[in-house]
């Protein structure tokens, strides 16, 4: 202790982490580590160790694979965004994947019965909200812990999905639904949207800064301000250009980003969102200042239900089918909660962000994607994914200056 150690660096890290952007750092580091490994380290290693290899093949970072990765992670991300909302409250939802399954199955059955695709989508979104909110009611008003209610929900909805799909699976070839995953935004339109977005964000930042100055409020350091805008611009353009250079930006990704932006705005910038953080931070305080804690909880579970339904629609569209194992019975549940938590959202409530859930989903998605590009056996793949995940998240933990406990 009594030394001048790790001062400037640690401090700079700390200050950086306190900006909005700072919350992205850990999961971005993890993602960078994983992409670095699969994109560069692994191919280089293979190239060096295998004398037969004629050329270095950087498949992982190829636009085509990035496109695949985005599409493969989309369902997880959709669910993770929803789950983040209840995690912020300090609750958990084990039933989101099963809800998605029920909604997808219902969607399949509806379009098979001749209901137009768009109507079927709206209907299952309503069903998703009801399924989520029903659990929220039990949690909020009856007072059963969310873990237990949603565990029961998981069982019940798994059964419901099997009931709707007695054979466990169903092809979905409704053109409207398939279009969600298939339609591509024309290259130029995609770019124009990106430019528009970046300009908008820039203007908003400038206007904000001007207003703050005018009202005599503390100003953000211009480094932080422009750093954030620049970061946003880089990410946006990199994503659009990469996707364009394979095919184009898929509609599904645009939808996912738009929905997340909306939820991100609601959680950080509205009284409702503020109340979610307040309840997660200190339920009793929130109650005492007159927040309707129960209603907020029900609404949050309604939102997870909605996001699960959207995840179900996305899944049905992408898989071209609905199957029990892809939703209710598989690994989607743990992966989507894992994505939210890897994104940095606390299981104890009050801390996290929906954007991070998307990054967390990319972390999880990259593991499977990257390992499936390697020729390892399934046992090795599992072991690797554990190890890589651990290393990736440890990088942040180790780089963080150790101090008073945190969990």
């Amino acid at each position: 202790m009594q030394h001048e150690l790790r001062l400037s660096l640690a401090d700079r890290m700390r200050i950086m982490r306190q900006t909005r952007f700072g919350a992205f750092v850990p999961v971005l580091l993890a993602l960078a580590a994983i992409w670095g490994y699969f994109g560069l380290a692994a191919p280089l290693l293979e190239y060096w160790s295998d004398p037969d290899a004629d050329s270095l093949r950087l498949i992982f970072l190829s636009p085509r694979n990035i496109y695949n990765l985005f599409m493969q992670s989309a369902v997880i991300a959709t669910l993770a965004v929803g789950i983040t909302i209840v995690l912020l409250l300090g609750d958990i939802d084990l039933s989101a994947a099963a809800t998605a399954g029920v909604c997808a199955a219902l969607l399949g059955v509806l379009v098979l019965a001749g209901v137009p695709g768009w109507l079927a989508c709206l209907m299952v979104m309503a069903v998703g909200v009801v399924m989520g909110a029903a659990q929220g009611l039990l949690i909020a008003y009856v007072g059963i812990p969310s873990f237990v209610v949603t565990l029961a929900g998981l069982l019940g909805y798994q059964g419901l999905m099997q009931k709707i799909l007695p054979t466990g699976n169903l092809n979905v070839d409704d053109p409207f639904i398939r279009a969600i995953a298939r339609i591509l935004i024309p290259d130029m339109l995609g770019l124009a949207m990106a430019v528009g977005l970046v300009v908008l964000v820039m203007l908003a930042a400038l206007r904000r800064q001007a207003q703050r100055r005018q009202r005599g409020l503390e100003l953000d350091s211009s480094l932080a301000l422009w750093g954030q805008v620049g970061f946003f611009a880089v990410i946006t353009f990199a994503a659009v250009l990469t996707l364009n250079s394979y095919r184009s930006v898929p509609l599904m990704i645009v939808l996912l980003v738009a929905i997340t932006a909306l939820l991100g705005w609601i959680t950080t910038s509205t009284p409702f969102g503020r109340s979610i953080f307040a309840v997660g931070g200190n339920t009793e305080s929130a109650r005492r200042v007159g927040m309707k804690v129960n209603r907020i909880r029900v609404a949050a579970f309604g939102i997870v239900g909605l996001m699960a339904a959207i995840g179900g629609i996305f899944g049905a569209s992408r898989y071209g089918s609905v199957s029990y194992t892809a939703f209710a019975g598989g690994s989607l549940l743990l992966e989507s909660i894992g994505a939210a938590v890897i994104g940095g959202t606390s299981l104890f409530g009050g801390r996290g962000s929906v954007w991070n859930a998307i990054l967390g989903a990319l972390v999880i998605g990259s593991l499977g994607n990257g390992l499936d590009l390697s020729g390892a056996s399934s046992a090795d793949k599992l072991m690797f994914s554990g190890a890589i995940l651990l290393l990736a998240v440890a990088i942040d933990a180790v780089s963080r200056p150790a101090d008073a406990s945190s969990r």
Partner: protein
Amino acid sequence: MTTDNLTAGSRTPPPHLRVTGIHKRFGGLHALRGVDFEVARGEVMALVGDNGAGKSTLMKVLAGAYLADEGEFWLDGEQVLVGGPTDAADLGIQIVYQDLALCENLDVAANLSLGAEPVKPGWGFLPRFLRPIDEMEMEVKAQKAIDRLEVRTLKSVRALVGGLSGGQRQAIAIARAVGAESSVVMLDEPTAALGVAQTRQVLNVVRRLRDTNHAVVYISHNMRDIFEVADRICILRHGANVGTWRTAETTPDEIVVAMTRGLDEGQTHAA
């Protein structure tokens, strides 16, 4: 319990908020045993009592944070129901809790507006809870409130409450309660963690509230402060009333004795 006694006497202004026969049990513990309490507009009523006497419990009942097991509420002579914090807030009751009730994961400005965030104009088509928060308005308000309490070490209203000192937190809790629209303000040991200058400011705030015709309830263990601001002093002991005194007609010593030993004949005293 002589309810009539409490309101009798021409010297007493008519009570604004009055409760009678409040009982509150926690499991086997009988924390309030039929307490009567009242406070009038334009007066500061001090509530004193030993540790564990039931002061905070009574305040929480008044603020709707606890539901009483028995008891009745009157506001300006009319019986009212208080079923939760929102009901109390609607009746114009604001409170500084002894445990502050802040959200450590939110910043100072957010805590100060908690539950009453200002929203930007022009989004009337949305329900209020989905309109954009006016962050700048919030910060301006917060800065003003903090300045008024002279907490000069608090550099930014955007600091998370989790990292604040005990006094800084208390100042925020006070600023939140006195900043809101209200007719009754209750402060549960508001100066316990405050410095000398800040304490003086809080006492000024209390006086200002009285002068603007608020009903103020002030809980403290500090006799000097109480005798400086209070008009009447209500003593609780073991969850029951000992009595109420006019400050002008008693002395700190008398109060301390009544607080710790009760009245000899076991009769309540009313002012």
